[in-house]
């Protein structure tokens, strides 16, 4: 764990703001045997719009996923159209041939009861729910939800509920017809991955990446608590929901993958200090379920800040890594806002915002010498062109949502 300020040295005299980054990096797994067992539900949309290549690829990808599981993993398969069918109730992956046979025999039909499908998938996962397992639902859909609760907010709340139960939902949006807000919300609130699969041929690859993540969970139920002291107070969390009250900020993550870096950025207000002095301003506590030892571990860190008289000294001490993350997060929030503006039909506003965003990223990429920010800047410029097009909500909107989600959750693919 690292806990660092973007500007560990700030100007003395007067209140200053700084970004606090709490980073977590998953330890590496030695081999497949040492990983935690997985409790996976694959929820497949079988509505008639899936028919053809999409559905064949989905079945193929799901079968491949089943093949990658270890015998002691748990697998269930749920399909839904207007009704929900628990195709394979939660069972050990050693039955993989039977499971694959059932997947192969699926035929597409009907409408989309997405909520019911996920709820039933969750019910299957719950049968073997354990903090020692990686509990995961993979939802594969190409459509809208039209039976059951169907707003992004409601699906987000389902995500929160499942997240609290330590079940993450990964949502794989297939083609151009799915509701990306709904799929992204469900994934975000349950701390799962989200992917936009434009072409069914990419499905196997994405499924493989997803399973790579699932099989590499090294920590679960992660809670980061930041207690600010000595006059410092939290302003807001960047690009993420956090519980902030008084001098405390709490954020929960469902899991951390092996060698993955995940972080939490907090904008804090620092009290005034005399030049040349330094003080402790925060205590950070991270608790997590270690998937290797099956125990709850805790990590602690203290964060201090120094006060300097000159701006040059402040700049020289800037933590570029933290600042890159902060800039990225701020730009990501703006990108989200641009999508909201575009949804309201304010095309020009959205375009201007994205262009501003691009120059903001460009400026910082130079200042912080970060190629990553430069890339993001180019993407924002590109998006600015795309939002003006009438066809933008076909592919671009989904791409932007996916990119936003990736940045926000530090998703690996």
């Amino acid at each position: 764990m690292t806990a660092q300020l973007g500007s560990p040295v700030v100007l003395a005299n007067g209140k200053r703001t700084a970004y606090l980054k709490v980073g977590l990096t998953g330890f590496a797994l030695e081999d497949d045997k040492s990983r935690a067992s997985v409790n996976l539900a694959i929820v497949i949309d079988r509505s008639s719009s899936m028919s053809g290549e999409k559905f064949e690829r989905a079945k193929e990808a799901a079968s491949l996923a089943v093949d990658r599981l270890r015998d002691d993993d748990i697998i269930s398969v749920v399909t839904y159209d207007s009704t929900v069918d628990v195709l394979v109730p939660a069972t050990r992956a050693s039955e993989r041939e039977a499971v694959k046979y059932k997947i192969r025999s699926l035929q597409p039909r009907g409408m989309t009861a997405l909520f019911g499908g996920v709820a039933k998938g969750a019910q299957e996962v719950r049968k073997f729910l354990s903090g020692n397992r990686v509990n995961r639902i993979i939802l594969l859909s190409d459509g809208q939800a039209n039976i059951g609760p169907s707003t992004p907010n409601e699906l987000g709340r389902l995500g929160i509920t499942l997240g609290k139960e330590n079940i993450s939902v990964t949502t794989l949006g297939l083609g151009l017809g799915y509701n990306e807000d709904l799929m992204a919300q469900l994934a975000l609130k349950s701390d799962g991955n989200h992917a936009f699969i434009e072409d069914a041929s990419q499905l196997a690859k994405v499924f493989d990446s997803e399973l790579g993540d699932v099989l590499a969970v090294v920590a679960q139920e992660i809670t980061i608590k930041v207690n600010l002291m000595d006059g410092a107070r939290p302003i807001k969390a960047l690009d993420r929901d956090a519980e902030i009250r008084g001098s405390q900020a709490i954020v929960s993550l469902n899991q951390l993958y092996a060698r993955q870096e995940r972080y939490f950025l907090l904008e804090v207000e620092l009290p005034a200090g005399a030049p040349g002095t330094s003080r402790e301003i925060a205590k950070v506590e991270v608790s997590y379920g270690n998937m290797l030892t099956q125990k709850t571990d805790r990590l602690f860190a203290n964060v201090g800040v120094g006060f300097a008289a000159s701006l040059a000294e402040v700049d020289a001490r800037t933590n570029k890594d933290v600042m890159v993350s902060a800039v990225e997060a701020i730009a990501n929030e703006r990108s989200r806002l641009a999508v909201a503006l575009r949804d309201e039909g304010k095309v020009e506003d959205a375009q201007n915002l994205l262009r501003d965003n691009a120059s903001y990223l460009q400026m910082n990429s130079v200042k912080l010498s970060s190629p990553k920010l430069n890339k993001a800047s180019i993407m924002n410029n590109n998006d600015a062109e795309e939002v003006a097009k009438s066809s933008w909500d076909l592919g671009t909107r989904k791409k932007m949502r996916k990119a936003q989600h990736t940045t926000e959750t530090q998703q690996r693919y």
Partner: protein
Amino acid sequence: MRDKLTIVFGLLVLVPVILLALMGAKVARDEQTMVAARLESLREDRLQGLAVDIRRTIELTEAELGATLALLDSNDAEKMRDLVRINPMITQVFVVRTDGELSFPVKEGATEAERAFLARTEAIWRGKAMLADLRDADASDRGYARGDSISALAARRPRGWVTWYWEEGLHLLHWQARTEGGVIGVEVDRVALIARVIGVLPEIDVEDGRLVMLDLRAEPLFQWGRGEPKDGEKTRARRALDHPLESYSLAEFPGAGGTFEETTQVGLWASLIAALGMVFALAAYFHRERTREAREARQKVNFVTQVSHELKTPLTNIRMYAELLSEDLEGLEDTATPRRHLEVIVSESQRLSRLIHNILTFSRHQSDKLTLRPTDVPLRPLADAVVAQFEPSFAAKGLKAEVSGESTAHVDPDAVGQILGNLLSNVEKYASDGHRVEVEIKDDRMEVRDHGPGVPPEDLRRIFEPFVRLGDKLSDGVTGTGIGLTIAGELARLQGGSLDVERANPGLRFTLRFPKEKGLPS
């Protein structure tokens, strides 16, 4: 004859078929009503069972929440916030003091989520938590009145739900009384609760129809069952869920597949058709039997006709040669005895000839092949000729025939001769006791009157029926085919006239009427 049979058979088939159809329709209607009633109660039972499952899930949730809240220190805000963080059902914990004031959460130091909670529950806490705004139709049934505060409720009941609609939908608070007074409660996430309820509902259970859990706006929350309901189809059964989800309901749609009623209908119609088939088969069987009998009878008649034809040729020869012989005898001496013998041969052959003629006429008439060729005929010579034929046999029985009158009629001479011959033959057979028979030719008719024993009035009509011979007394020792009068009557009718009989006391009078308008010279 055959048309009548066809009609009878038609009726034989149609009547039971119509009866069967009527009865079948009635049975079907009754059955349908009964099945519908039984299905109705089955459906209600099923919905009831599901509603019970859902209630149990809610009760389980209540119990879990109760256990959780019982362990919770309502003065420790951190613990309460931790609970919200980890419990999937709970979005907020709240504490109400005895005086009805909310002591947690409070605006000062509240998190963003807590502030949102305070905003959406403001109506509940305003004016010491008046419940008047709550959507709770049967509040009085639950032992509290509208306008009560939650803490007032807690004085009477240990726990309860408060539900209300705001923005996206149903909001739920579950509270329970604290030992130290006041109330501790939680806001339950509707989405989490629905997901949990869906977890216990079946996936695909019913073969036909579609079961649906509906929200307040009758939008489906979850559905199962294989049938896909058609657009705008009405629910077959519906039932509201129990408190606190009373604004939700369970409903059943008929679905597109074949229903149970249709299946029984199919069965009923199948049995009806089977019964119909049986009736038809039975009718066909009887019809075939009947036509077989008729065919056999026809074959017999054909046989008799054939034989009669065969008999006629030699008989004609016998008659002819007997008559030739009788002519040859003239001029010879002492011919009395051979002449008498010859007369017997001639008279018997004439009788046999009449008999055969009658049989042939009858069978021709039976097969509708009898045709007459009327011409203008002087009746007197015709009558004389016929009577002359009978003279020898009449003489033998002491009968005397008298012919009187004269007229001309447009008739078939053979037919009139045959009629008269049959009448005189009867007189010879049955009325020789009267010793007298009068044949009287009038303007449009010919009357034959005997002086024999006659016929009782009740039998008068029957004597024209074929093969009817009256009483043993009359027919004792008398031979006959029983078709003579039948043929005479038919022949009279066929040429447009009639043959009637009346009692003349003693004896009978037969009146042969000729056609009135046609053929009579003016």
